[in-house]
């Protein structure tokens, strides 16, 4: 099986879906000749032409809004936000429109758009090229938010997102683009949106996380294995709406839960995860639910000292798992 990195998996999913379905097209800033600033759409312009790989003016509300219009018509747009931080001008189109079209029309219209955006830090991107933006959207029924943690998941979930009949925010960790590699099957497969995935089974502590942090958690878990601590890792994959069943199952299993996000803590996705656990499996817990997250600052600073301080890493996770295991 070929080994792909995270961004190659994005590219392969796009290419295959565009080959499969003529309605699928890509739009965004610099996605055409340039192939995207991260090269996610490299080669697509040459293969599918200008009209299906559309360089747009620099205007995110239009990228989302025009995509939404075409999705209502029956196309399958895949809109790229150059950086997740720049999705903010499009919030009105995403929350007021995409998320509500099916509901407000009583199922007469629907909006199968996929919006891709690179999020996350650790790439010297500073405040506006490092943000985790999922929490802004994770309270909007009608939307789905997918945040894959590995190349294999990227391909299967992006294909599923494109085929989904409702709007999907597809958030890719930009630090993962070239960092993470694994075997990815050629051709057809999809993975279910809305389902979490146990990335590692274990019995002492459950780590629930998503995106790049899954990778960090795995590293931590491997080290701890040698010290006799057995860690279960649940990868949320879809952070909205959450897979409650999987969360409850995995939390109840070990009774000790560590929630991890790269986002700042208050109001992040993992708060909701904690709430679900405390609603449904309080009496199965042997320790308080622990949350490990970024500091409560507006976004990740640029200077290396500060960026490092902000970023999640395996060591922080290792220490937190250890504390819990010893609780």
């Amino acid at each position, binding site marked *: 099986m070929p080994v792909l990195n995270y961004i190659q998996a994005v590219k392969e999913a796009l290419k295959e879906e565009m080959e499969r379905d003529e309605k699928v097209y890509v739009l965004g800033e610099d996605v055409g000749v340039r192939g995207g600033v991260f090269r996610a759409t490299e080669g697509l312009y040459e293969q599918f032409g200008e009209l299906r790989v*559309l360089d747009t003016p620099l205007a995110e509300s239009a990228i989302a809004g*025009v995509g939404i219009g075409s999705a*209502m*018509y029956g*196309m399958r747009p895949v809109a790229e936000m150059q950086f997740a931080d720049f999705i903010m001008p499009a919030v009105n*189109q995403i929350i007021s429109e995409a998320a509500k*079209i*099916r509901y407000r029309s009583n199922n007469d219209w629907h909006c199968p758009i996929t919006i891709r955006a690179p999020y996350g830090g650790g790439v010297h991107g500073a405040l506006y090229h490092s943000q985790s933006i999922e929490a802004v959207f994770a309270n909007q029924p009608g939307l789905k938010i997918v945040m894959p943690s590995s190349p294999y998941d990227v391909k299967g979930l992006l294909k599923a997102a494109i085929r989904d*009949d409702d709007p999907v925010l597809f958030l890719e960790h930009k630090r993962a683009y070239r960092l993470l590699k694994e075997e990815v099957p050629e051709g057809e497969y999809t993975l279910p949106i809305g389902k979490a995935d146990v990335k590692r089974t274990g019995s002492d502590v459950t780590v629930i996380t998503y995106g790049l942090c899954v990778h960090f958690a795995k590293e931590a878990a491997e080290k701890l294995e040698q010290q006799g601590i057995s860690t279960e890792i649940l990868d949320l994959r879809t952070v909205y709406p959450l897979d409650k069943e999987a969360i409850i199952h995995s939390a109840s299993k070990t009774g000790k839960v560590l929630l991890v996000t790269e986002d700042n803590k208050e109001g992040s996705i993992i708060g909701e995860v904690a709430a679900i656990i405390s609603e449904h499996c309080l009496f199965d817990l042997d320790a308080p639910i622990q949350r490990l997250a970024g500091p409560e600052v507006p976004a990740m600073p640029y200077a290396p000292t500060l960026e490092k301080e902000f970023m999640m890493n395996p060591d922080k996770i290792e220490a937190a798992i250890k504390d819990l295991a010893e609780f």
Partner: protein
Amino acid sequence: MVKSTLNFDKDQETLLSMYKEILLARRIDERMWLLNRAGTIPFVVSCQGQEVQQVAASFALNKEEDYVLPYYRDIGVVLHFGMTTRELFLQAFAKAEDPNSGGRQMPSHFGKKASRIVTGSSPVTTQVPHAVGFALSAKMEQKSFATFVTMGEGSANQGDFHEGLNFAAVHKLPVIFMVENNQYAISVPLSKQVACEKLSDRANGYGMPGITVDGNDPFAVYEAVKEARERALKGEGPTLIEAVSYRLTPHSSDDDDSGYRTKEEVDAAKEKDGLYTFYNQLKEKNILTAEIESEIEEMIKKEINEATEYAENAAYADASTITEHVYGVRR
């Protein structure tokens, strides 16, 4: 501009149909106010003063092929495109059978896929990029239809106006933008909304043709939209049309306009009400005879009565349906 292709000699039937739709829109609106003032329906937002431009524009479109993205005052547009009087009352009463939203949205949030009326929301101007998306689809799929989108002149100051028009112009898309300038955005008069002379002055800044027409003149509006549609289908790109009229009612049934404009001003505007100018023209030319007139009024009254009664007696959506259609059913 070429002369109007609609004229009193050869298009008597078309003109009469236009008049009927204009009048129907007005009468529906009037009834809704009555129902509102009687406490039967909680909310009305009016088309009054804008019916002529709405219906004339719609006549210049192809209602079997084109897509429309109307805004909340466009009763004239949705009627022409196939929304029935009954359906309009069903939505005013927020009943389950309402095709727009099944009673989920406030009145005048139109949408009906079977008639290519695209679902709209309350936040203004979001429909403008959507219209561009429909037009982009036409270009991608090589389909020969135009997309028509309207908004108020106040709404033309939202960012989505700018982004939508620019996108359409850069990609030369078959879309017609019509600003229905009724001189007010709730209480804010035109002079506090924009400083340009005409809203259509903005077209040049996007590199598309722009034209301002008297929204009370059905011939002028028809012609402008017809030409814009021809340009669109020929691949010549978008057009911006400003139709100037006046909002004859308060902003909505929740508004009281007496604090921000004078009765004199409103009365003066009523003098220019396109419905009556057109009526007088048709009478004068003897296209609208007394007989036809009473026939039309009779028919409209009957239609509205029946629709009101039907809608009033129809059922609300059951509370249990509240969670339906958040997401599609997985196939």
